[in-house]
């Protein structure tokens, strides 16, 4: 009996070696969003029969730029290699002066995304986004913001908000934390004035009433979310923290088309949709020339704001 169980477990866990297949690079440590995206892709591709035994490899470091550099140099023309990435990578490439950029790989599609949410602890005297902006205008140093790593999406969003409110972005008092968890603890513990992170990180706390949601960074109001957009509040800021998948550089047009078709098949599958629902990720599928244009726009806007904050010279 035991042997049977073990055998079936291993047979299930270890796919039978048969055909060459996708290797997905997650340019981050296990546990983060990119790693989870890569592992979810692995599961769905296998279950949908797109790839018989996709593998995930973690190449952590420096906001994904180490993984990106290694991926670009080792896989030229390899149609089986994929890398997961996202908006954070755009900023990291700029702040780290990375020699390899997204131009050195073949972006395939944007898969998922999250909007930023601005919250205050329930005990805070600040009631709405206008109140926060007024406090910020009065004394930017007195408003401490807890969020993710320096130069990351959260930091960029605070810089954009300050700029839109007419406050000098170099004057923001941004407190960087390594993971979403630590920042959330600081907000819940009333250590800081306000917090900023992707909406999903805060959702459970907002429902429980321990955090007050002031605004979200989406272009339009989100379904089921009781908060104005930043634009409604008179701040011209929209920001999406998206995740994407890219293929190796030097692919032929046919190869690129095949990879795109495989990814599209995965992203349109019921399995993928169910995974997104389970994890609370938004489907923000975008591919082809539209995605390329969006990418271009994001890169130039990010470069501008990072210069304003003083993180990029």
């Amino acid at each position, binding site marked *: 009996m035991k042997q049977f169980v073990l055998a079936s477990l*291993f047979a299930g*866990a*270890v796919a039978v*070696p*048969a*055909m*060459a*297949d996708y290797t997905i690079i997650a340019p981050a440590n296990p546990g983060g969003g990119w790693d989870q995206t890569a592992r979810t892709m692995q599961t769905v591709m296998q279950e949908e029969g797109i790839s018989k*035994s996709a*593998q*995930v*490899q*973690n190449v952590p470091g420096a906001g994904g730029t180490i993984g990106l550099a290694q991926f670009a140099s080792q896989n030229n023309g390899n149609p089986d290699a994929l890398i997961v990435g996202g908006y954070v990578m755009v900023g990291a490439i700029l702040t780290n002066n990375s020699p390899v950029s997204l131009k050195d790989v073949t972006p395939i599609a944007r898969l998922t995304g999250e909007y930023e949410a601005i919250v205050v602890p329930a005990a805070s005297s600040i009631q709405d986004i206008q109140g926060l902006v007024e406090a910020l205008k009065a004394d930017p*140093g007195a408003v401490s913001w807890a969020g993710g790593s320096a130069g990351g999406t959260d930091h960029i969003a605070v810089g954009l908000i300050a700029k839109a409110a007419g406050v000098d972005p170099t004057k923001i*008092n*941004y407190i960087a934390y390594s993971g979403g968890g630590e920042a959330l603890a600081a907000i819940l513990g009333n250590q800081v004035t306000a917090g900023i992170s992707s909406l999903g990180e805060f959702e459970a706390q907002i429902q429980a009433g321990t955090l007050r949601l002031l605004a979200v960074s989406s272009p339009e109001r989100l379904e089921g979310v009781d908060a104005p957009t930043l634009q409604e509040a008179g701040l011209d800021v929209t920001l999406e923290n998206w995740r994407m998948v890219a293929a190796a550089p030097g692919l032929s047009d046919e190869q690129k088309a095949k990879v795109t078709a495989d990814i599209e098949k995965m992203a349109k599958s019921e399995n993928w949709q169910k995974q997104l629902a389970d994890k609370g990720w938004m489907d923000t599928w975008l591919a082809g020339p539209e995605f390329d244009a969006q990418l271009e726009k994001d890169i130039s806007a990010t470069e501008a704001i990072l210069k304003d904050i*003083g993180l990029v010279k």
Partner: protein
Amino acid sequence: MSGNRHEPQRRRDMAALAIAAGLLVAGAVMLWDSARLADLGGYSGVGPASVPRVVGFALIGLAVWTAIEALRGDFPQRPAQNIPPVLWIVAGLALQLVLLHLTGFSIATGILFAFTARAFGKRNLAMTIPIGIVFAFAVWAVFSQLLMLHLPAGPLEHLVFPRG
């Protein structure tokens, strides 16, 4: 604490002086690197350069202290060392590093295995290298095939598991 310590032994300790020099260089590098950082202390007043600067000065202070002890001959006796075995292990690690992505995990690690065994007295490399490669290959198979750890594969691994 040891018996030798009580004898008046005021010889200059050159190796300890070299350590002092090393600490001095490390401290200087810290200070040099922190000097070129932009001071983004912001509201805290403690910027990215502050801590490296403190550590740099501390290392320089420790270098001076080490130099004084070295000149007074206060450093403890070192155990007598036999250098060739140490070099065998270092060579094994260096070869593994160089060969890992060329020959795959098993061959590179098998050589490390054999060199280490040599350092501890098994001198017959013609015997230990094959043993090492077979053992490393078995380990590779278990961890990469059963437990899905990503370990570099080379010709040998591809021969047995065509997909690697």
